[in-house]
């Protein structure tokens, strides 16, 4: 029980504080105590790592009563976070996807993080990867501290790929940088597994179909929304090209056309497919399963010399609450800093760290397969701006539904594109509620 654990920590607080007082140089001098509520949406391996980081924080800040809560991912989480902020009972610190923080900011639900406050805790723009930091600014002001960038990546079974002749002499995966090479690799892998070449979650999934579509569509430099979501600029030719390509994979049964998130994991984990496409966070799942696998950038199928891939960043935000005092703000910022300092733990879970001191360290470069795809940060394609957009948003749900129906051969690319357009147009026409 949380209560007993807290009581225990409280009891040993005095003793621990004495022992650790010397090494708390990162926090401004003292540890004034108090409570800290923190919300996140991490399940699976991310959840396990976040718990480790929280334990790390508890160890260095024994005087603070930290209560951490994990909520259901996606819209339910953001609905809860917004409602709690409206109800004046938000957490002190919360996780928000960079693309969702945008809407929360325009709704006035987040505190601005002023440079002087950040500086007190040793944080400034140059400490963070440029892409996520810049992408998170609104009107030049910071509201969200990026913890990572999490691109869509490619997992591959090294045994299967070796047998299929897809590895070069050094054991690296041969490039799959054209539709033909990609499809051929799937076919070869399928010949080995006797099941599928690759697998991607489709059914009942509000995000994954969008992720794979957007990665390819962004490689063609396609745009979906403009003018902060007030205009739909979907490109039919590029969209058709991507959807035709994806549908071809499921039509030839190289990729299963009907499978959900857990099912897709199971197929890859059981060696029934050579490739698996998802955000890098599933790394822990396959490490636990003791699968012979590695990870690489999602292939540059359509991009030529310009790389792009769907990505988002987890950021740390401070929801607005009346009567927050300076001490409370500092406690929250110190907590954020403490999590950034444990970026290595976080990076082990697959995420590309945004914290430059780790990103540029040899320590990180030595981490494989995690550092294999660090370059994805430069090509990161975030969801377009709009009050209905962002990770797990109505936008992604609408897009995923249409894309999923093409992957599952339940509709044609043309029908899916027109469904996307009509749904997006009605959202675009709606006056922004924020």
């Amino acid at each position: 029980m949380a209560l007993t654990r807290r009581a225990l920590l409280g009891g040993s607080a005095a003793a621990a504080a004495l022992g650790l007082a010397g090494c708390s140089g990162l926090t401004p001098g003292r540890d004034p105590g108090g409570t800290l509520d923190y919300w996140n949406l991490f399940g699976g391996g991310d959840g396990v790592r976040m718990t480790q980081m929280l334990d790390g924080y508890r160890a260095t800040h024994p005087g603070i009563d930290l209560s951490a809560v994990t909520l259901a991912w996606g819209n339910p989480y953001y609905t809860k976070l917004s409602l709690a902020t409206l109800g004046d009972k938000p957490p002190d610190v919360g996780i928000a996807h960079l693309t969702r923080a945008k809407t929360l900011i325009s709704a006035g639900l987040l505190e601005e993080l002023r440079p002087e406050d950040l500086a007190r805790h040793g944080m400034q723009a140059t400490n963070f990867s440029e892409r996520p930091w810049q992408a998170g600014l609104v009107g030049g002001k910071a509201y969200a501290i990026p913890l990572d960038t999490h691109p869509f990546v490619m997992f591959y079974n090294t045994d299967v790929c070796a047998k299929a002749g897809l590895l070069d002499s050094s054991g690296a995966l041969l490039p799959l940088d054209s539709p033909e090479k990609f499809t051929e690799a799937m076919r070869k892998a399928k010949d080995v597994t006797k099941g599928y070449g690759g697998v991607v979650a489709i059914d009942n999934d509000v995000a994954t179909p969008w992720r794979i579509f957007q990665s390819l569509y962004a490689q063609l430099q396609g745009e979906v929304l403009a003018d902060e979501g007030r205009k739909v600029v979907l490109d039919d030719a590029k969209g058709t090209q991507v959807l035709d390509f994806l549908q071809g994979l499921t039509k030839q049964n190289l990729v299963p056309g009907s499978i959900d998130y857990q099912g897709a994991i199971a197929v890859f984990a059981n060696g029934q497919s050579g490739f698996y496409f998802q955000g890098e966070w599933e790394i822990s799942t396959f490490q636990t399963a003791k699968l012979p696998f590695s990870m690489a950038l999602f292939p540059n199928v359509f991009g030529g010399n310009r790389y792009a891939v769907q990505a988002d960043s987890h950021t740390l935000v401070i929801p607005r609450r009346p009567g927050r005092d300076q001490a409370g703000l500092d406690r929250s910022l110190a907590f954020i800093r403490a999590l950034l300092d444990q970026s290595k733990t976080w990076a082990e879970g697959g995420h590309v760290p945004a914290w430059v001191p780790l990103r540029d360290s040899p320590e990180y470069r030595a981490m494989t397969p995690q550092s294999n795809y660090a370059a994805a940060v430069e090509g990161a394609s975030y969801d377009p701006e709009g009050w209905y957009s962002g990770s797990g948003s109505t936008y992604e749900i609408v897009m995923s539904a249409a894309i999923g129906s093409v992957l599952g051969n339940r509709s044609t690319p043309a029908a899916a594109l027109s469904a996307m357009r009509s749904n997006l147009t009605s959202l675009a026409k709606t006056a922004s509620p924020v």
Partner: protein
Amino acid sequence: MTVEARVKLFNRICAGVLIAFALLWLTPLLWALDTALKPNAETTRTTWAVQDPNVQAFARILRDTDIVRWFGSSLFIATLTALGTVLTASLAAFALSRMRFRYRTLVFWFVLAGIMIPSQVLIVPQFREMDSFNLLNTFWAVSLPQIPTAVAVFIFKQFFDGLPRELQEVARLDGAGYLRIYGRIIMPLARPAVAAVVIFAFVTSWNDLLWPLLVLSNPDIMTMPVGLATVQGSFGIRYADTMASALLGAVPLVAVFLLFQRNIVEGIAGSGLKG
């Protein structure tokens, strides 16, 4: 075959069919229990056999989640709601059934109109209202809107109408005030109606999801259903843990049911048939 033998055979077949269905109905619960007793890793094989039955999943849930606290919230809210409903509805019904006053019919129809408004239609304005009262994330926000239940007034009024008038007249002659008649004579006689309304209000409140989901966004004070629905995502593929949490969430009401089986069933049958 004689008629008697035929009837006997028919009854046997009936019993057989019914038992088969009853077992089928129990299967999901038994399967949940079976899963919860397995270690998480063992749940990836679909078999009833448990290699190493243990209650660690239950222990983990009790230790790692706030389920005990959710139980407390649910208990407090459901009790408050049930008592509030019985008290306000029976008082109002007493006035409507036993007292003469101007606009009585009007008031009665006004209350009856409330039956037509499904509470779900009101979530949006009620949320705003709670927001402006600064009651969000409090037990009051959950309980207060559930207390005024038009159906409960109707059930009580029906019941009071059926009680003999003479009781009241005798008491009246003895100089008893209305409050005494209500408290000493009518309510003790209305025990079946009270039971029906208490059970109805308690179970409805305990199982409600939509409204508490909206107003309790802080996990510290969530009710059991909201808590279970909220954290289910964090279990991932730990199916034994998920089932343990579900069963722990089921235990309180099942226990209440087993204790008061007769009252609950009769209460529901009675209120349903009258309402």
